[in-house]
């Protein structure tokens, strides 16, 4: 498992290779990259600054990964999140999941992003022509995270 909160960019090729290097039991690797967009809520965004809660961030990410490991049989997970000032087009977050078969890798990758979006202590502040503004949390992100809770309930019933 790898968790990193960093200002530097990441390289998905290097991270994926590091994950599969020297092992032959991995049958599937799914990944997700989130990028900074140039528009949000009807305004042009020229840059954004990501703030976090250093004492909590890695703990929260580790807890999310632990939950994924309990739900699916995963062979490895890499989660990298950038902080600091980013420009449109810059990568923000990387999730890579390795498993024996694709279903687990796809599902866990999506779960990790949904959980991160609602539970990991990061905040975005955007620079727009109208000035700086904090990004508001979206209800759709809560709904996306809640889907997994519903699935869990269904499984129990």
């Amino acid at each position, binding site marked *: 498992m790898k968790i990193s909160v960093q200002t530097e960019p990441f390289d998905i090729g290097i991270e994926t290779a590091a994950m599969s290097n020297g092992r032959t039991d991995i049958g599937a690797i799914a990944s997700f990259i*989130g990028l900074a967009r140039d528009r949000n809520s009807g305004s042009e965004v020229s840059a954004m600054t*990501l*703030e*976090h*809660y250093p*004492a*909590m961030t890695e*703990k*929260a990410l580790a807890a999310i990964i632990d939950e994924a490991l309990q739900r699916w049989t995963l062979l490895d997970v890499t989660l990298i*999140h950038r902080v600091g000032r980013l420009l449109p087009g810059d990568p*923000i*977050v990387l999730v890579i999941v390795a498993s024996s078969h694709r279903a687990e890798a796809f599902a866990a990758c999506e779960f990790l*992003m949904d959980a*991160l*979006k*609602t*539970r*990991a*202590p*990061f*905040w*975005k*502040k955007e620079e727009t022509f109208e000035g700086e503004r*904090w*990004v*508001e*949390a979206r209800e759709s992100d809560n709904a996306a995270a809640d889907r997994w809770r519903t699935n869990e309930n269904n499984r129990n019933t």
Partner: protein
Amino acid sequence: MNCRVLYFARLRERFDLAEESVELAGTPSVADLLAHLQARGGVWVEELGATKSFRVAVNQQLVKTDAHIPDHAEVAIFPPVTGG
């Protein structure tokens, strides 16, 4: 008892405060701390009122408002997160 309270992102800016030490009587819950802060009035009521959306972590774990705050705990109050 005493706890350290941290504020992040928009709340830090609204309160113009990144952290402070707060004294509370007895064995307080998060709700007790919030009531203590709201009693300051102004921006504290505006941001921490019942209709407002914010999150609280005690010792770096997200908790509900009925959670107990241990002595010397680190409590963080922050807006709903927007990473990813």
